């Protein structure tokens, strides 16, 4: 998987428009601090960097999952990212339709998790992504006050990545949480067990195909406050367009 990715991905990745729904069209001045961070990361990790984006005073770097631990080590030793902020996961399955009467509809889409559903497209976010699952983490340099978001794509069938415990001890609880909520396995974590949920809990609640039972029985009442005011339709249209354009 990773070899197939690295054959196609590394070169076009930085210019890839798919990830950049939020790409800045007005071309702001180059963020020199973060560009330097990205350059030193590239010098250390080379082809393992699959995508990167610098926008709005922030930087996202997507690395190959094989280089996940290396990326942390480089960030800590070379970039001075001493502070571990958080680590969590992402499930790029489409969100359930908010405006629908029933929020979670089991018949609407086959989300059995057997992967490769040809109809499903993953609209991934900043710095791109190839697979359904992504692990992402935030590191911070308290001296220069510059932070970085690292991401790595994980295999849908067997979401597995190296553990950061050897680099940041604080990753312990965060990886336990990601294991519990998303079912990611962190190789090298000494103690993957439930942190919030009871030990016998089954399933991974933050995955998009895990039903929110309360909302399944009854739609969230807050969603239906469509105030019937005359002229509301026009008003609704204009700001929506403006919002998309901006």
């Amino acid at each position, binding site marked *: 998987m990773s070899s197939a990715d690295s054959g196609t991905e590394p070169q076009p990745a930085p210019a890839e428009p798919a990830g950049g729904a939020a790409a800045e069209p007005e071309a702001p001045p180059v963020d020199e601090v973060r560009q330097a961070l990205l350059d030193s990361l590239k010098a250390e990790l080379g082809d393992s960097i699959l995508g990167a984006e610098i926008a709005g005073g922030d930087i996202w770097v997507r690395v190959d999952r094989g280089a996940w631990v290396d990326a942390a080590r480089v960030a800590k030793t070379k970039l001075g990212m001493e502070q571990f902020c958080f680590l969590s996961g992402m499930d790029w399955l489409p*969100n359930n339709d908010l405006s629908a009467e029933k929020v979670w509809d089991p018949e609407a889409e086959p989300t059995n998790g057997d992967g490769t559903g040809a109809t499903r497209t993953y609209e991934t976010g900043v710095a791109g992504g190839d697979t359904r699952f992504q692990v992402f983490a935030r590191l911070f340099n308290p001296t220069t006050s510059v932070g970085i978001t690292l991401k790595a794509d994980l295999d849908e069938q067997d979401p597995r990545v190296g553990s950061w415990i050897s680099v940041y001890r604080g990753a312990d609880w965060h990886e336990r949480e990601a294991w519990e909520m998303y079912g990611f396995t962190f190789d090298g974590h000494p103690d993957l067990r439930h942190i919030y949920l009871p030990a016998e809990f089954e399933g991974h609640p933050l995955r998009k195909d895990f039903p929110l039972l309360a909302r399944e029985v009854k739609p969230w009442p807050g969603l239906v406050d469509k105030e019937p005011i005359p002229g509301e339709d026009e008003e609704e249209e204009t700001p929506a367009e403006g919002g998309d354009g901006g």
Partner: protein
Amino acid sequence: MTTTGTDWRQAAYISGQAADARVNVELETEGMTLNIGPQHPATHGTLRIVCRLDGEQVIWADPACGYMHRGYEKLAEVRKYPQITTLVNRIDWLGSFANEVPFILAAEKLMDIEAPPRAQWIRTVLFEMARIANITLFLGDMAAQLGAVTPVFYAFRDREHALNLIESATGGRFHPNYDRIGGLKDDLPKGWIDECKAVMRRIRDFCDEMDDVLVGNEIFQTRTRGIGVIPRDVGLEYGLTGANIRASGVDWDIRRDEDSPLAWKDVDWKVWTHPDGDSFARYWVRLQETREATLIVDQLLDGLPAGPIMAKVPRIIKVPAGEAWVHTENPMGEMGYYIVSKGDIGPFRVKIKTPSFNNISITPWLLRGVYVPDVITILASLYFILGDIDR
């Protein structure tokens, strides 16, 4: 799940059994397992800490969280943006307003709108009020953990004034739900500024009282100095933030160090640090911060700009697609929201990074080798709120 996990559990079990069976010949003590919590005055809620003891010494401690896990990250995915402030209010319930601000700022960052100056200043005032209401309680409560009862009454007495102010401005004592995308719900009520200044004087008096009653107290110093020392690099690796890391000598405050739309850059104030990293340092830094917060509020009230409190925002709020991370220096430490939007009326994913979760994750490391009475001091000085750990 993994074999390493099983091995670890076996090792923990065996060492626990060994600790239980160990007999200290000299002192004639036996090992035991002690459950602190879920209901204990020192735990501010329902945190359970399982301690393996050898005599009076802790050899292994494991906090068990999750008694108050409410799944806000999941719930946020089925709500609209303006409705989420109601949820995040309940994360750190002692300083609720401060929870709303970073979320709103993150949404505003994605929408590329900015609230008018007056709204930003009032936000900053209330943010610092939330800090005062929150930390005041800590200042008294820490003494209660050590067996001194008076300071906690002082704390509740003076926090009441701050809460009354928050209530008169926002309508809610604990859960203001006052921040809106693009501004605020209301302007400040008439006469609020004068009342607020009087309360700030009271809070400063309270800080002086704590200085006299507690900080200079010999018993307090003996119980806290050199107890629970966190070195700088370990604290950073565990992601400690706020006063906990400033007490370890890290000069880092998001309010000062980063560009924020809020008004901290417009007033004159100081970041306090302490080199020791022990329980006393954490108390001392928080005490200074409370005093500093009152000074910030005073200056902000003096310079409060006139103007509208709400920017022009669409009535149905749709946030453009993108990802944004915004963090602020909350009473407990760094709080941040990582919002992933797909251009919908609700977020695609909200990662809520809370300070207490990181702050408490250090306890297995920190409690190893300390004595049972110090467990309480250390937990109190790390200062956590259960809702802030469990989200």
